[in-house]
């Protein structure tokens, strides 16, 4: 039935959520292209559910513990080999693609945040947990590293040029070139120290790009500051009393007010830059080729009843993780009293980097993604593999390894359960071209694909829900 003075279709149609989620602005101020809520939704040529995950380990490996780290160890040089490592309880184990476990050691201090780093120079993976002396594994032998000044690294160790760097209570220590068994220790020249109060929290290898220049080095973090470590010659003997001729390593503070307390969150995104979760509960981005960073998580800081990153459990910042996979920057945070990440937000890197974009240069986020309780994630992307794996973060669920963001998978594995995924997409608020007048809405019309279930629709005004749970049916 035709209607008099019907609001024309361009005014009565919502723009696709190409600007993603905005929890920050008031509902009245949301712009076309933004969404109020995208629970378990992404935008890819349409709003659709995110990928689910599945179990790699068919049964719990251990109850009462969570996965404290995971890593795919690629090694073997001309004879490529691979091994999947996880840490839980006091164990470092390998897990096959079929989920079978082989315990490499039960000699770690139990239940510590653990970090794996593969170093190709020695073709070994190194294990650090802030409590035990550095361990190594070469694919055959798991061992404690022995030698001079072997550190107890705080967090992940980082390869820079021809050596390793590790955070200790002294600062940042280094090895001699191409060896893992000679380290500096509280050295007058070889130990990098922060200029601000507090211990270093994380170190992340990265070559900063200047105009026609590369600066080999790393970013080092304190809770409230971050630094640039650079150099082309880090000395010949790290344990020597004085530096060798030509040694030019340096550390410089880049910002004394933004730092990181979440070492699992520091991630490099190809062609985009480095991201991390800040101690003041935001996401920070240092674009590639730049030393000037910026916050990109403001839209996730909620001013409404929806929980955003402002609700991150500040007592568990160390459990926040971020990773890069399938053109998404994925952030996992623990909220409320949770000790493991229970909510994820996904930044769409296609929207951030597309050359023809008309949007502002800021992150486009989707979420919240709920239903998973993954505490650690790691990429497996060599020797013909391309997967994102995850480790269960809830010790009450047990030790499970998952395949994350699995294509054509519409359920979430949580422990031994497979849970449906409930997606909720809520648009921005339209005034329908007559902001001062009340409108009479007869119906909502949609173009949908792949409707096998029963979607429902709610309609909301600024002051509340107008109608809820209306079945959406084919015309």
């Amino acid at each position, binding site marked *: 039935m035709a209607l008099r003075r019907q609001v024309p279709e361009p005014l009565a*149609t919502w723009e696709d959520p190409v600007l993603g989620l905005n929890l920050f602005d008031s509902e009245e101020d949301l712009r076309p292209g933004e969404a109020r809520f995208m629970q378990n939704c992404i935008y890819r040529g349409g709003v659709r559910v995110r990928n689910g995950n599945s179990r790699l380990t068919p049964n719990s490996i251990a109850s009462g513990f969570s996965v404290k780290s995971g890593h795919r160890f690629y090694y073997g040089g001309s004879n490529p080999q691979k091994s999947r490592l996880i840490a839980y309880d006091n164990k470092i184990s390998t897990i096959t693609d079929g989920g079978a476990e082989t315990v490499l050691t039960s000699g770690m201090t139990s239940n510590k945040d653990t970090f794996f780093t593969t170093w190709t120079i020695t073709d070994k993976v190194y294990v650090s947990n802030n409590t035990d002396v550095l361990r190594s594994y070469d694919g055959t032998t798991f061992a404690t590293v022995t030698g001079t000044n072997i550190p107890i690294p705080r967090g992940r160790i980082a390869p820079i040029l021809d050596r390793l760097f590790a955070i200790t209570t002294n600062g940042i220590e280094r090895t001699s070139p191409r060896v893992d068994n000679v380290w500096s220790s509280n050295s007058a020249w070889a130990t990098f120290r922060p200029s601000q109060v507090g211990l270093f929290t994380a170190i992340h290898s990265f070559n900063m790009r200047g105009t026609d220049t590369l600066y080999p080095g790393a970013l080092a973090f304190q809770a409230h500051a971050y630094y640039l470590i650079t150099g082309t010659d880090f000395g010949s003997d790290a344990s020597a009393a004085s530096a060798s001729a030509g040694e030019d390593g340096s550390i410089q503070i880049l910002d004394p007010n933004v730092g990181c307390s979440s070492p699992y969150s520091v991630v490099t995104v190809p062609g985009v830059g480095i991201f991390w979760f800040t101690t003041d509960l935001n996401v920070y981005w240092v674009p590639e080729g730049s030393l000037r960073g910026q916050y990109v998580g403001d839209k996730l800081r909620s001013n409404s009843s929806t929980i955003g990153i402002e609700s991150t459990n500040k007592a568990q910042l160390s459990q926040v993780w971020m990773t890069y996979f399938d053109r998404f920057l994925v952030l996992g945070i623990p909220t409320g009293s949770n000790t493991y990440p229970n909510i994820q937000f996904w930044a769409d890197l296609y929207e951030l980097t597309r050359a023809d974009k008309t949007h502002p240069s800021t992150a486009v986020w989707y979420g919240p993604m709920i239903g998973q309780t993954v505490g650690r994630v790691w990429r497996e992307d060599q020797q013909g593999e391309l997967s994102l794996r995850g480790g269960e973060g809830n010790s009450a669920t047990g030790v499970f390894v998952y395949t994350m963001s699995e294509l054509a998978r519409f359920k979430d594995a949580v422990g031994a359960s497979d849970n449906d995924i409930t997606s909720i997409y809520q648009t921005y608020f339209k005034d329908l071209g007559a902001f001062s007048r009340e409108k009479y809405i007869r119906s909502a019309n*949609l173009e949908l694909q792949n409707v096998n279930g029963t979607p429902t*629709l709610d309609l909301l005004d600024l002051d509340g829900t107008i109608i809820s749970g209306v079945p959406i*049916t084919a*015309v």
Partner: protein
Amino acid sequence: MAFWNTFHWSDGTLWSNVSSRPDIFTAPIDRSAHFVSARITMVSSSSGSTTASLVIHTLSLEVNTRSQLPDYYEAFIDRNDNTQRISTMVRHTTGVEDLLTETSELLTTETSETLILDEPYSFVVNRQHLLMNKRSRIQPTG
């Protein structure tokens, strides 16, 4: 707005059970509002080869500004003496439409209000009823 006639996953495999073109769906509303946001809820699951996962391409409303009414609406006219009931279809171009346009400027709430007019009849207009159900109950009052 956007849609594809085929959907592929990021590894190039086809999302085989997506319909070749979007289908048109509707949801009845019959409510009034100032600023409008739509929220769609869907439970996705997969079990074996059966998959349920919604893809939303377009979302629009069929909506009028409040003072506007359908071209046709059903009107019930009761004679003053209640001895005769006339049920008819009234075009919006008739005097009743003009009446309602005028009254809409005066009505400020969704509740029923009474307005007495002179010619050719005086009516009691239940505007709420009219708007919500596209049906008016009009009573001559003298």
